[in-house]
């Protein structure tokens, strides 16, 4: 039952992604052609407000619902993984029109063929785990 709250948070997230059309391949295509402000507005306002929220959490040392201090882990500074991995993901994002969150949500929207995209993404992650030692990791 303690997992139920995550299910509910996910349901809200899925509704937000659908209602704002950010799960649409067309919106991603439009974004990469710089022909609409919509996606930039969604991500930009989420980050802008997020910066304020994180600063408030840190400065006021806000605690989570179980009473523990909220710790937001730093992302490890690795230049080439961030740039190369980010670029590889960007290629896939434009092709599928979906980053990982939207892949799940668009399946729920009834586009069941995206199960193939999800399975391919799992295989992609699996493959990364097998070859990671051969890639630049700094």
């Amino acid at each position, binding site marked *: 039952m303690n997992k139920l709250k995550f*299910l509910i*948070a*996910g*349901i809200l*997230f899925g509704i937000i992604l*659908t209602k704002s*059309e*950010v*799960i*649409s*391949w*067309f*919106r991603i*295509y439009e974004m*990469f*052609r710089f022909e609409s*402000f919509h996606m930039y*507005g*969604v*991500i930009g*306002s*989420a980050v802008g407000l997020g910066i304020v929220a*994180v600063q408030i*959490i840190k400065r006021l040392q806000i605690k*989570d619902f179980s009473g523990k201090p909220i710790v937001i882990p730093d*992302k*490890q500074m*690795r230049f080439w*993984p961030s740039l*190369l*991995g*980010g*670029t*590889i*993901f*960007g*290629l*896939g*994002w434009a*092709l599928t029109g979906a*980053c990982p969150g939207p892949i*799940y*949500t*668009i*399946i*729920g*929207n*009834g586009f069941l*063929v995206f199960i193939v995209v999800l*399975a*391919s*993404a*799992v295989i*992609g*992650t*699996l*493959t*990364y*785990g097998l070859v*990671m030692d051969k890639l630049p990791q700094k």
Partner: protein
Amino acid sequence: MTNWLTDPWPWYVAGPLITLTMVLLFLFGKTFGVSSTLRTICSIGGAGKWSDFFKFDWRSAVWNLFFVAGAAIGGYIASTYMTSGEAIALSEATTQSLKQVGIKNPGAEFVPSEIFQWANLATWQGLLFMVVGGFLVGFGTRYAGGCTSGHAITGLSNLQLPSLIAVVGFFIGGLIVTHFIFPFVL
């Protein structure tokens, strides 16, 4: 008159609600980031046999599988009970560019049905968009250490330099495909 239930939500509603999702997960003692669920699925499937990368306590990550199961259910709820059925209001330039390459009704559905359909998995185009595309999403996010939620939203909100570099990469990749690959494959 706008109907908030069935009309699309504008960016200034959706963006802050995504921030709220991130904060909600902080308050639950977790960090917002969807692509790590792909690694968790590999671990549950036994991939630890082949790579130590998948040997971690996946039970501590099961909460995120509930979150993404919810994201799918939320998609079902929104598409079933919260839609007007109207086409996406794409920009005119976008619509025209797609019609020129034979996409008949841009925005009528969330995805171009010419490309994203089961029968198309037997064509090189379908394989490129769905199988290769999905593979690159899974490979790239794990190499970069996050996706749009973990890097672009959470990482940038937390002023993380690696996240900024990753987001630059997201755009390098997306722009390459959209401007240099799509002219040949759409």
